[in-house]
Each structure stands twice: as structure tokens, then as C-alpha cells.
């Protein structure tokens, strides 16, 4: 009793805390796996209403005002469906909805996952058919008479989906996350021509390098190595041009574009066959920035290639 100046009490409390902490750690160890599994199951249950998740690879993208669940095909990892889980301000609290959109932008379905609207009229938004069938078109939206604010919240969610659905399917989904590993290839002139047959000279220009392949002091081929800014990083391309201005081949040697559509510039046929003619150029829809970069490279070549073969390089 005399010795109890608080220190021992503190020690008792501390040891009690330790025991409790150990107990909690033990229980946590027991339950943590199951909690994770249950949480995931709960999330999937809502999506399962629209798609059979087992058939897809599921990916989750967290945005400011919601989450996008990306369902990719298991065979070629193309985006098959997007399930948007967005929130908007309703009459009471936020209204949270799940909107499932197919690749052809048709709406598979939508469901209200959370709402706290005024009972009676406001709660009519649950299970109501808002006549929203095409993801990029909210003009057909039917609101509920008498529940303007609640249906405006629903409309806000649909509008948000409609604004991004198209671009999401075309690769805009990953706009905010650059891929980790750049696409880099070791390319040399040998990939186009047999370098033993030619004298190779290297000329530095403003935008890159030109390899001049000469045979008997005549310029036979030019290999342009040009780099230009892409979406996230530089894009570097090798373009081999023959003497008759026909394009032998082109290879993207370095790029760091968006996963999905942006990376399509690699191995893509841009329909560029005559060096000074860009009119046939095919851009990649959905990856405008990336293909614009490629186009820019080609236009640099198109501008100077005739002059280069005519001897402009020697100047």
C-alpha cells in the first residue's frame, strides 16, 4: 500500500495493455484473411449482378469521387466492361450508384448501392428505370416527378459516366497512371539493311540522328532516328527511307505511353509508305497524343527527306 505511488499502478496498466494487445494480435491473426475475403465478396456481389466476374480479370481504379472496376477479358486483356461506382449529392446524403457499361457503350445496368433520401418520393430512385441505355447519351434520362433533387443526383452520376465512358474504353482510363516500365528496344541500322554493304555515316540533326548509308559515294538509304515528346515521355523512332523515297520500315525504339491504347503505337501500321507523303497516315483513335507524336516524327522526315537525298546533308 505504501509503495503504491502510481508507478506500480502504471505498470499494472501497462502489463494489462500488453496482454490485451497480444490477445488482439492473436484474434486479428485469426480473422484478417477472412475479413479480406468477405470484403471482396461483398464488393463483387454487387458487380456479379451484371457480369460473371469469374470470366474476367478484375482491376480496380480509385478516383476522387468513386471507383472504377475494370473487367478485362482473360484471353487478350482488352477492357470488356467497366463498372463505375460513383457518388453524387442527393437530397439527404450522397447517393452511390453502380453503373455497368459494356464495350459498345451500351449500359448493362445500374443500381443504387447507397442512399438516404426522404422516404416516399426520394427512395423511388431505387429500382427506378431512368431510361439510360447508351453510356454516352444522357438525353433520354427520365427523371422522377416530385423527386427532382434525388433524380438530379442520379443524373449527375450518369453524366459523369457519360463524360468519361468513351475515353475510358479508349485508354483514357489510365491517364493518371503512367506505366512503370518504358517500352525500349535495341534498334540498329542492321535491323533495316545489311550494314556490311554500305558505308555508314552519322549526322546529328536538331531532332535526332540520321544514318547515311552510301554505296559508291551515292546515298542509297537514310535511317532517321527522331525523338519527340509523347504523352508521358519521349517517343523515339527509327525510320528507314530508300532512295526512291519509299519507306522501308519504321520501328518505335523507345516509348512510355499509357498502357492499353498508348502502347499501340509499337508495332502499329501507320500506313506511311512514301516518305514525303503524309496524307495516307492513319492515326490511332483513342491515343491521339501518342499518334500525333508519331505523326510529328513522320512530318519532320517528310519535310527534309527529299532535300537529304538531293545532297542537302552535305551542307
Amino acid at each position, binding site marked *: 500500500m505504501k509503495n503504491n505511488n502510481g508507478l506500480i499502478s502504471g505498470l499494472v496498466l501497462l502489463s494489462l495493455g500488453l496482454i490485451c494487445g497480444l490477445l488482439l494480435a492473436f484474434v486479428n491473426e485469426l480473422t484478417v484473411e477472412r475479413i479480406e475475403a468477405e470484403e471482396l465478396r461483398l464488393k463483387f456481389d454487387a458487380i456479379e449482378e451484371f457480369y460473371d466476374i469469374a470470366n474476367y480479370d478484375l482491376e480496380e481504379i480509385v478516383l476522387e469521387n468513386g471507383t472504377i472496376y475494370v473487367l478485362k477479358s482473360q484471353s487478350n486483356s482488352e477492357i470488356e466492361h467497366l463498372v463505375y461506382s460513383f457518388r453524387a449529392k442527393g437530397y439527404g446524403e450522397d447517393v452511390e450508384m453502380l453503373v455497368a457499361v459494356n464495350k459498345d457503350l451500351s449500359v448493362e445496368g445500374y443500381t443504387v448501392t447507397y442512399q438516404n433520401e426522404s422516404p416516399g418520393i426520394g427512395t423511388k430512385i431505387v429500382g427506378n428505370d431512368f*431510361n439510360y441505355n447508351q453510356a454516352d447519351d444522357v*438525353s*433520354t434520362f*427520365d427523371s422522377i416527378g416530385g423527386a427532382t433533387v434525388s433524380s438530379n443526383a442520379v443524373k449527375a452520376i450518369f453524366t459523369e459516366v457519360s463524360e468519361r465512358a468513351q475515353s475510358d474504353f479508349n485508354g483514357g482510363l489510365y491517364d493518371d497512371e503512367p506505366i512503370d516500365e518504358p517500352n525500349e528496344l535495341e534498334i540498329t541500322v542492321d535491323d533495316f539493311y545489311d550494314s556490311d554493304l554500305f558505308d555508314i555515316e552519322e549526322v546529328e540533326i536538331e531532332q535526332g540522328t540520321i544514318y547515311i548509308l552510301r554505296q559508291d559515294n551515292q546515298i542509297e538509304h537514310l535511317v532517321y532516328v527522331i525523338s519527340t515528346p509523347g504523352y508521358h515521355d519521349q517517343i523515339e523512332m527509327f525510320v528507314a527511307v530508300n532512295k526512291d523515297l519509299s519507306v522501308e520500315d519504321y520501328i518505335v525504339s523507345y516509348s512510355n505511353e499509357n498502357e492499353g491504347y498508348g502502347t499501340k503505337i509499337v508495332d502499329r501500321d501507320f500506313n506511311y509508305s512514301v516518305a514525303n507523303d503524309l496524307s495516307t497516315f492513319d492515326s490511332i483513335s483513342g491515343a491521339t497524343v501518342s499518334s500525333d507524336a508519331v505523326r510529328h516524327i513522320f512530318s519532320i522526315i517528310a519535310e527534309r527527306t527529299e532535300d537529304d537525298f538531293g545532297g542537302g546533308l552535305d551542307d
Partner: protein
Amino acid sequence: MKEFLNKKGLIIVLSTLLLIVFVFGGMYSRYMTNQIDVNEQNRYETSLLELVNDGVTLEYFDAEGVDKSYHTPGSEDEYSPSLLDSYKVMDDSNVETAVIYVIETIGISAGFVAAYAISVDDDQLLAVKVISHNETDNQDNRYFNRLNDAFFNQFTNKDLDVIDFSVDTIAGATLSSLALDIGMKYARELYAADYAFEIINVILEINSLNYNYDLDTINEFSFIAEITFDEDDKTAIVHLDTDFNYIDTSSGDEVTQGVIDALPVFVSKTHILCLDVTIEGYDETTRELSISVNGYSLASVKMIILINSALDAVENVTFISSDESYDYSHGYSGSGVPEVEQGYIDGFNSQGVILDETAGATVTSHAMGRAIEWIKSLEIALNGGN
């Protein structure tokens, strides 16, 4: 009594009163609510009955239903209109006179509901009534309001057994007009399924259409058309008169009656040729070919083409008369219209060229220009294709 009320009776009476109000008052208010629906339905049916003149009663029936898709106006998607209600209309002696289909179609937006009344006796579309629609833009129904009386008049007493079963759309409200047009066509399909009515269905394509420049036959027919018809792509070259009525077949497969009936409609809808010039007649003895051209009004400018004796060139063109208005109210202030026309003809005769249009008489100038073009084509034909 007072004794009773002073004991437990009072609460019983009061509670009973409450219960009575609850039960009977509730019945009363439910009756009121139902009555709204009943009144609504009555008004709806009355408005439907107004579509048919001699209609007295409506009788609901289950229509056969047809699955047919149409283009959604303004896009490539196909959709099938939905039949909401179907009624038989009885007259005062309880004989069925008409049938009404209430069909939902898509205009600018979905939910274009209209009633289409079809007379059973003479297979006619009697009238159309729009029940509800979503053709709105913000507060006012801008698009829908463009559909004027003239547009709706197209639907009254419209025969179902015509080849071209469609109405002219209204500019500025094309999609809304198309909603009614499609609904009307779908109503015809429904009618054909419910009643023994056959929709005329002609497969016909006009491949080419030309004036007949052959002086020997020019009096018999004005146009030569090359057509493809029927499901197995039969072809024929047919001759048509000035109103595109069928005259005869010069070569190819035999033309069916359905195609013959359909030809005028199909040709007039197919603008292959600039159809301004009408051949009035050819006199073999005087070698005079008279034609008329559409100026301000139809076939208003008349002229005679004199063919030379060898029948291989145009000798002279004479301006005969014109119905053009000479009041110059359209701002024409140059030389008189006949002078304008004569100028063209003189120019053609002397130089074989077509003059520039005369300012202020643009329409007439254009007509003359086309007449001259026609004459040049005639000359080439007479020359044997040179």
C-alpha cells in the same frame, strides 16, 4: 343513455367514431383516388373516340402484334415500336367501323405515344392523335410545336394501299415527324396482321432515266427508263409518258402489274434527271417540236424547235409564249422577260452557246438554260450521238 356514457360508454363511442371515420372516410378517399384514374381513362377513351367520326363505343382487344424494326431517327440503331393499347371502334349499331392503335415510337427522345385510327371499311388511316411525347427542349416543346396542321392533315383519310406510304417531314422537326411516320407504318403492319389486308410491297429500282429524243416515237412516250425489279433482279427498259406512266416495254423481262402501278411514284421520288422540260408534241409535216420549261410556274415557258429537213439538226428555236408573271414584283428590272428568252434563243441559234443568266430574271434564265441544254442534247441525239 347518460348513465352508459358516464361509465365506459364514452370511450367506446369516441373510439367507434374514430373507427367509423377511418373505415368510411378511408373508403371515400379511396373512391376519390380511384375516380381520378377512372376519369383519366374516360377522358383518354373519349379523346380516342373523337378520332373516328361515327364511333360510339370503344372495345379493347388484343392485337396480333408485329415484330418489325425501324431505324431510330437520327441514328443507325434499329428499334421496334411498342403497341400500348388497341381498341375496336363500334358505331351506333355496334358494328366495327375502325380500329385504333396506340403506339410508342422514338422521336428526338423515346416515349412518343400517338393513337392511329384506321377505318376498317375503306382501309384508310382516319386520323392521328399525339397522346404524349418527350420532344422537349428545356421548358418549351420547341420541336414538337413545329408540327403544324398541314403536317397532321397528311394523316387524315390516307389510303393504306398505296405504294408510297409515308408523309412529308417538317423541317426543323424531322425526328419528331419521323416518329409519327414510323408509328403510322407500324400501325399499318398491325392492321395487316389483325385484318385481312395486304400491304403492297414492290421491289423496284430505277437505274437510269432519259428523255426520248427519237423523233419517230417522241409523241408516244417521253422517257426511257432502265429498271430492276422483283426479288430475282429482273431488268427491263420501259417507256414512260410525261407523267411517268408506263407505256410499254422495249426490252428485258416482262413487267408485272405491281411494278407498272409503282413506276410513277418511284420515278418521281428518284431524281435521276433534271425534269424541267416537258415534250408537248411533234408535228412530222412541219417538223416542229414543241416543248415547255418550268420557270416560275410549271411548264410556263413554251417554245417550238424547228428541225431541219434532214432531221439531223435544229434549224431554229422560236419562243412562243410564257406564263411568267411580268409584274416584275420579284425585282426584275432589266429588259422584258420575252426579250430575255429571245436573247437566249438567238444566242443559241447564232452561236450554239448558252448565255449567262440575266440578273433579276434568274429563275427564268435557269429554265431557259435548261431548255437550251435539252435542245443541245436533242441535236446530239439527232446527229446520231455526236
